[in-house]
């Protein structure tokens, strides 16, 4: 057996189909780059909103009734009731830039940015070896304590950071809100077309998530369902993506959306606008998503 596989392997590629047009590749890249810039802007706003919401959510656990349901607990392999120093390897210098957060993921493993970062505690996945990990850490950098939530590997990572104290319980509450927010942005990018401005508000959609299942609202019936549609590199495993066709007396609808532990996003469109079958509609939605360049 020769070690040279080049010749025999390449002889097996005689019947190659044509490539996707380069313009389409370019459009997909531009769209992703734009999305990334938008996310970077909105992440800061989301972080501020989370700051305001965390104390409220923590207080609702005493059963006063009403209010917002607390988020579903996330599996936390590194859970501890109080921060305990965690040893993380220092990331190779070639992966670190001036914009790198104190902790980062490289191929599913969490690293610290440099030796000046002391990791006091972690929450979530710190070594998963999977696409789109999500984890958080309390770190000390230059005398300051910071909370850092990271979703996704470098260089695709989304991150939220805030300066705070080393209260681990508050940190967990903050991270539990950040994960679905950050993951949701990636998941919606994987399901909705183009700039994903929904034709109707989610509140007016004929469908809604009940648990992890996309169901019809009162007066409607689900005729067809596709689970995990349009899977691509941006989909996020913990998020449940589904597409349904819903029959209502006045009109049928297609709806595609994601649910990330209670936070959901939908894209709803009447049947006939883009296509007449769910599979065709999803294919066209993905085409718009891939080609969007406006």
């Amino acid at each position: 057996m020769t070690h040279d596989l080049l010749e025999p392997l390449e002889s097996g590629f005689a019947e190659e189909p044509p490539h996707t047009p380069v313009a389409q590749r370019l459009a997909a890249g531009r769209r992703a780059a734009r999305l990334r810039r938008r996310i970077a802007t909105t992440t800061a706003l989301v972080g501020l909103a989370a700051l305001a919401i965390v104390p409220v959510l923590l207080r609702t656990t005493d059963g006063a009734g009403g209010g917002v349901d607390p988020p579903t607990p996330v599996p936390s392999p590194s859970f501890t009731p109080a921060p305990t120093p965690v040893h993380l390897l220092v990331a190779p210098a070639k992966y670190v830039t001036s914009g790198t957060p104190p902790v980062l993921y490289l191929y599913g493993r969490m690293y610290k940015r440099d030796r000046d970062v002391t990791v006091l505690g972690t929450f979530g996945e710190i070594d998963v070896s999977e696409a789109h990990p999500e984890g958080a850490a309390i770190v000390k950098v230059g005398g300051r304590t910071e909370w850092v939530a990271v979703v996704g590997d470098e260089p695709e990572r989304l991150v939220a950071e805030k300066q705070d104290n080393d209260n681990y319980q508050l940190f967990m509450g903050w991270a539990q809100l950040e994960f679905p927010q950050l993951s949701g942005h990636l998941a919606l990018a994987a399901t909705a077309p183009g700039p994903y401005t929904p034709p109707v508000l989610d509140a007016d959609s004929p469908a809604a998530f009940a648990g992890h299942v996309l169901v019809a609202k009162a007066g409607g019936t689900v005729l067809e369902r596709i689970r995990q549609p349009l899977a691509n590199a941006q989909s996020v495993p913990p998020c449940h993506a589904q597409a349904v066709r819903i029959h209502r007396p006045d009109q049928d609808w297609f709806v595609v959306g994601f649910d990330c532990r209670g936070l959901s996003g939908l894209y709803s469109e009447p049947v006939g606008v883009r296509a007449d079958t769910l599979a065709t509609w999803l294919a066209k939605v993905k085409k718009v998503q891939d080609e969007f360049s406006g």
Partner: protein
Amino acid sequence: MRSTSREARDAAYVEFVVARQDRLRRLAFALCGDWDRADEILGAALTRLYVAWPRLEREGIEEPFVRRQIVRADVDRSVADTDAPSEAGPLAQALLALPVKQRRAVLLRHWLGLSVEETAEELAISRSAAQAQAEHGLAALAESLAREPR
């Protein structure tokens, strides 16, 4: 040459895609055995490439970046779901019959010609594991091909 504008970036990106897409898609196909899935894997990798282009171009690691995205893509599903291995030649079919870890190691080590160290880094595994996966994979490949009717 470092790009200084979006037009230059796009031109360099297009030039890269046109020059490398054949080989990169073949790598994806050799991993998953399905041209549609291979195109999807390549597309996802190229999209990530565009997003990270300035840094990758500056460091001159465009192709290793895309290659790494491809070899780490989820290919188990494709091989299990597809009827497509008949599209491939005997060697490619034998490759697709290997466990995915061995398949990745064999392709990197013996098709792309990476060193053991480079293969280990690409797959985020130890040097000894990379060597073992590549050697076991190659042995299994030879055995599989020896059984092929000639």
